[in-house]
C-alpha cells in the first residue's frame, strides 16, 4: 500500500525528474560549441589511450588470455563500471547539502532526489558503454549472448551504490568529515579491487575473502568474465554483493526516516 503510494507519487513527479535530468545534462554541455559531443569524446579518448598503450606499446597480456586486446578490454570494462560506482557515491554523498535550498523551503517527495542521481549516472554510463560496445564491435571482441548478463550485474551494482551513497549522504549532513574521509577511502578501494591488475596475481588465500568482503570486487569480476572470457559470470559469487546491497538500502531507508526532520533542521 505504502509502496503503491510511493510509486504513484514518483509517477506524478516524472516530468520534474526528467526535466532535472535533462537540465543537468544540458547545463554540463551548454555554452560549449560541440555540446554533447564532448560526452562522447572523453571516454573515447580513454579507450583509445588504454588500447594503444597497453596492447601496442607495452604489449601487456592477461595471464590466461592470448588476445591482443584482452587487457585493454579488461581495463576498460573495470574502469567504466567503477566510474558509474564513484559517480553515484560522490553525488549522493552531497545530495542533501547540494539541495539544501529546496529541501528547506519546499515540501516534495524526497525520494525523487536519489532517482535523479541514478538516472543521470546511468545516462552518462550508457553513453560510455555504447562507445565501449562499438569498440568491441570494431575489434571483434563482442561477447555475444553473455552480454545480456550485464543487466542483472548492473542492477546489483546500482542497488549497492545508492544504498551506500544514501547512508553516506545522511551521515555527511551531520558529520562533514564523511565526505573528506570517503574521498581517501575510495582511492584505497579502487586498488583493493582487481581493476588494473588481474585477480590471479593475488595470493590464493586472499581471493575468496576479497570476493566476499569487497562487493565491488565480485561485481567487477563479473564484468570481466562477461567481456574478457565472454562467458556467464559466476552467479554464486554475486549473492554476497546482492545481500550487502539490499542490507545497505534497508539501513539507508531507516537511517533517513529516523533523521529526516533533523536533516532539514541541520542544513
Amino acid at each position, binding site marked *: 500500500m505504502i509502496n503503491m503510494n510511493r510509486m504513484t507519487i514518483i509517477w506524478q513527479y516524472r516530468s520534474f525528474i526528467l526535466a532535472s535530468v535533462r537540465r543537468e545534462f544540458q547545463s554540463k554541455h551548454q555554452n560549449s560549441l560541440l555540446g554533447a559531443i564532448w560526452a562522447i569524446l572523453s571516454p573515447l579518448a580513454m579507450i583509445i589511450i588504454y588500447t594503444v598503450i597497453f596492447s601496442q606499446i607495452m604489449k601487456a597480456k592477461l595471464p590466461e588470455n592470448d588476445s591482443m586486446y584482452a587487457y585493454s578490454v579488461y581495463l576498460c570494462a573495470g574502469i567504466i563500471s567503477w566510474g558509474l560506482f564513484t559517480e553515484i557515491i560522490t553525488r549522493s554523498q552531497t545530495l542533501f547539502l547540494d539541495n539544501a535550498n529546496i529541501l528547506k*523551503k519546499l515540501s516534495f517527495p524526497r525520494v525523487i532526489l536519489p532517482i535523479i542521481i541514478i538516472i543521470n549516472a546511468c545516462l552518462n554510463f550508457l553513453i560510455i558503454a555504447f562507445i565501449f560496445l562499438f569498440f568491441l564491435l570494431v575489434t571483434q571482441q563482442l561477447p555475444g549472448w553473455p552480454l545480456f548478463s550485464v543487466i542483472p550485474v548492473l542492477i546489483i551494482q546500482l542497488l549497492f551504490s545508492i544504498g551506500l551513497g544514501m547512508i553516506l549522504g545522511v551521515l555527511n549532513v551531520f558529520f562533514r568529515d564523511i565526505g573528506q574521509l570517503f574521498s581517501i577511502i575510495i582511492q584505497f578501494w579502487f586498488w583493493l579491487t582487481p581493476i588494473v591488475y588481474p585477480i590471479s596475481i593475488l595470493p590464493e588465500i586472499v581471493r575468496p575473502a576479497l570476493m566476499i568482503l569487497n562487493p565491488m570486487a565480485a561485481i567487477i569480476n563479473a564484468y570481466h568474465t562477461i567481456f574478457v572470457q565472454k562467458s556467464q559470470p559466476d552467479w554464486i559469487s554475486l549473492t554476497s554483493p546482492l545481500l550487502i546491497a539490499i542490507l545497505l538500502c534497508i539501513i539507508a531507508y531507516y537511517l533517513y526516516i529516523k533523521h529526516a526532520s533533523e536533516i*532539514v533542521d541541520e542544513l
Partner: protein
Amino acid sequence: MPIIQVTQLKKAYKCYPSPWARLKEWLPFNRKQYHDLKWVLNDINFTVEKGESIGIIGLNGAGKSTLLKIITGTTNATSGTAIITGKIAALLELGMGFHPNFTGRQNVFTAGQLLGMSPNEITNLMPSIEAFAEIGDYIDQDVRVYSSGMRMRLAFSIATAKRPECRSTGLHIACAGCG
C-alpha cells in the same frame, strides 16, 4: 471546519556543544543525551477558517518561518499537531528551483512542478502566468539575463497562478515590490 488547525505545537532544535558530542550520542548503546533543546515554538494554538487572512508578527528569530515550515510540511514539529485540510501552497521564498541557464518558460515548468503542479496544469496556466508576469519576449530568454525585478515578477506569477485552499506566505514577500 477550519482549514488549518494548530494544536499545542512545539518545536525545538537540537544544540550540540561540539560535533564530537553528536558523535558520542550516535554511538550504539548510548543512553546519555549530550544536546540541549532550544525551544523556538512553545505551545502554539490557533485555527484558520476558510477565507480568513492571518498575519504572524514577531521579532527576527521569533519562529515565524519555522511555524510556516511546519504548516507547509517542510519540517516536522517536535510535538503537537498542525492539521491542514485541502491543498496548501507555500510561498516561503520566490524563485525556488530557478536555474539561470534556462529560459523563463522552462523554469516555469520546473518551478511549477516543484510546487506540485502537473505539466498539463502548467501548460494551461502558461498564458495567465505570462500575462501576469508582464515580461514580454523575455519569457523565452535565459533567466540569467533577467533583471532582478523580472525574475521576481515571473516567480510571483508562478506562485500565484493557482488558487489553493490555503496559502502560507513568508513575510519578506511583502517587500519584494512585484506589484
